[in-house]
């Protein structure tokens, strides 16, 4: 009876804490329906990443440096001065005991929920592809990336995309779990058999970027790489027309 009561109260406590903190964090989140909901008005996830990264780095460096300085100070100040010296532990009153819990907990919690809310908003940006996205299908296999464009054009290990258009990839896998990782666009998502996952990114400058596999997939895992080739709109259209022509010939 007692055990059940303890179990129930612990369970309820956990549920309350989780719900309360999640809903509290959600107060600071801007939802996709809102006008200009993106963090810092940035609608490109990679750029949002850089902003949030800087913020989190400042946060953890500040905590780390303050904490290290305090620790080093204590380590030097309270070193043993003579043989047989004993410590003189501070006598904590009940209030200071509780204070030493509540104050750090509230500082941590405020910081945590602030970061959580910002991370959640950026997450919404990452997971909400724009309306005008160019949709490409991806089927990964051991060990290649196979792309299919809307008009049936196919490409392997080379993803050619027009500059300035959001690219939405719908991904699945023929055999094992792979993960398409685009380090320059700060995004990755697993592709696996039996499920369709998605990710999107915004190519802003023409050029060649690395595409590589991030989920262990066997002997050739580290050789499973390719290129994202970001082309000017005209070049891309020319290339697409050529590919379509080839496709037509092949079909005829």
């Amino acid at each position, binding site marked *: 009876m007692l055990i059940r009561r303890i179990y129930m109260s612990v369970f309820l406590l*956990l549920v309350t804490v*989780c719900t309360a903190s999640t809903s509290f964090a959600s107060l600071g989140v801007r939802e996709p329906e809102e006008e200009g909901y993106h963090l810092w008005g940035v609608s490109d*996830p990679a750029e949002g*990443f850089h902003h949030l990264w800087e913020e989190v780095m400042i946060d953890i460096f500040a905590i780390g440096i303050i904490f290290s300085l305090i620790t080093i100070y204590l380590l030097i100040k309270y070193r043993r001065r003579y043989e047989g010296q004993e410590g003189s532990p501070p006598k904590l009153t009940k209030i200071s005991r509780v204070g030493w819990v509540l104050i750090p907990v509230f500082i941590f919690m405020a910081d*945590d929920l602030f970061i959580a809310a910002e991370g959640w908003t950026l997450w919404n940006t990452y997971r909400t592809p724009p309306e005008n996205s160019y949709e490409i299908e991806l089927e990964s296999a051991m060990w290649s990336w196979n792309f299919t464009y809307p008009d049936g054009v196919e490409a392997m290990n080379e993803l050619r995309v027009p500059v300035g258009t959001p690219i939405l990839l719908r991904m699945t896998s023929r055999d094992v779990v792979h993960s398409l990782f685009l380090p*320059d666009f700060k995004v990755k*998502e697993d592709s*696996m058999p039996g499920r369709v996952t998605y990710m999107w990114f915004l190519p802003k400058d023409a050029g060649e970027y690395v595409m590589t596999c991030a989920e262990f997939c066997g002997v050739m895992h580290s050789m499973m790489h390719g290129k994202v080739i970001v082309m000017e709109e005209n070049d891309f259209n020319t290339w697409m027309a050529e590919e379509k022509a080839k496709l037509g010939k092949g079909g005829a």
Partner: protein
Amino acid sequence: MSGKKGFGTTLKEWIFTTDHKRVGILYLIGSFAAFAVAGVIALIIRMELSTPGADITDPNTYNVMLYFHGAAMILGFQIPALTGFLANYLLPLQIGAKDVAFPRLNALSLWLFWMGIVLALLTFVIPNPPDIMWTGYPPYSIVSPGNTAFYTFTVLIMGFASIAGGVNLLTTIIYMRAPGMRWFKLNMFVWCTAAAFIIQLVFVPVLGSAVTMLSFDKYLGTHFFDPSAGGDVLLYQNLFWFYSHPAVYVILLPMLGIMFDVIATFARNRIFNYKVAVLGGVGGIVLMSGEVWVHHLYTSGMPDWIRIGMMVSTILISIPVGICVISMVGTLYRGAIQYKTPMLYAVGFIFLFLIGGLTGIPHAVAALDLHLQDTHFVVAHFHYVMAVSGTFAVIGGTYYLFPKMSGKMCNEGLGKIGFALTFIGSNLTFFTMFLVGLDGMPRRYFDYSHMPELASLHQIITYGAFILGLGVLVTFINWIHALIWGKKAVDNPWGSKSLEWTTTSPPGPGNWAEVPDCTNFDPYAYGED
């Protein structure tokens, strides 16, 4: 009876022992053997990665070595060294028990663990060794030519050993405390290991079921993880991390515990805010340990709502861990810190753990983790937070207990050289790994020819790894030297107030001539006499 016993008799005594101290020492030998082999393997891996392209191994061997490094370090070194060696040796002495509750069960779990070690070492002998990484994600582990059953049995045997050990030592803590040893008189180490055992008992069966289903899928033709027959690939990943994230706390809690005790002894001070550290810190970690596992699956196509929910709970777990760290650093306040080798490892631990903990925050933020997941950044993070922190805790704890276990003192000079080398080596290796990971170097890569610009950083990491290896080698030499030529230790060389130091070094059978009376006992009664 002649004074000298033959080697055969001694060996027989050790093999058939049910004494918790000998069991603990045998755990120590087994786990350090796994650590040494897995460490050498790590150096070979680093040599391979120091330049792009194939250098000294081929991808197949490389993957098998990575599998072995991960499995042996976690299942063969970290968990057995902390919950096997330290807990078995120290815990009954700290609560004033003559032995553990079920000595024969204890011997069984010890020899199961040794079977696991032998099985893991056989990886390099059998024809098709597993190359599925210690995570063993299907479908690769099902289609791989490697021997998945081998992986399953290693995990299951280690799992049985942990469950038997957990039941045994929890019972010991609950029923076998010396008279007058009340709950809030227990050492931090006892609280922390008790918490770790609770986590073990709740979560290990889940891992057992996951790896069993994996072998059923591969060898018996079931379809738990096969989507073409209605199974689900993600099911395994969820089951696996449902255990394997809490396993991080199984490693973390005992290392916090032993470091608390070392710091209190050498700072000659009480644990700062002891009750709060126990209830809020240790208790909080136990309560929250089971509700954060999805942060390993941020990029795995889980539903968005659970990724966000677990992001908030993951970020919040910094609170109980923070309470523990505040208590640990608070223990230094108004102390009289004496820098002996175990204390140096404890100080190193604080800083390594701090770096590891803080770099967990960008990982916890799901949106940032989309870039960091499965790169060297996460490798660096978990090596800071459990690998080198754990190694520092185990080595520091072994230095601390060395006089008690062997009756000999270690050489302080060699100890300090070993510490300096390990500390510099760890930071050089794993801090540089953060930079490589941030630049987009994925983990488990044999070759990075398409990212040649990372070669110079990779070289620094390799140098760091060798410095780290040298430090560990110096430490081993120091211990062997002390065992043979060490000065004789007194019963309480560190002047600790804990119960384990009131008996002889090494303690005889039954630990104390008569059961100690703990009515007026306090393990942290420093500065009050």
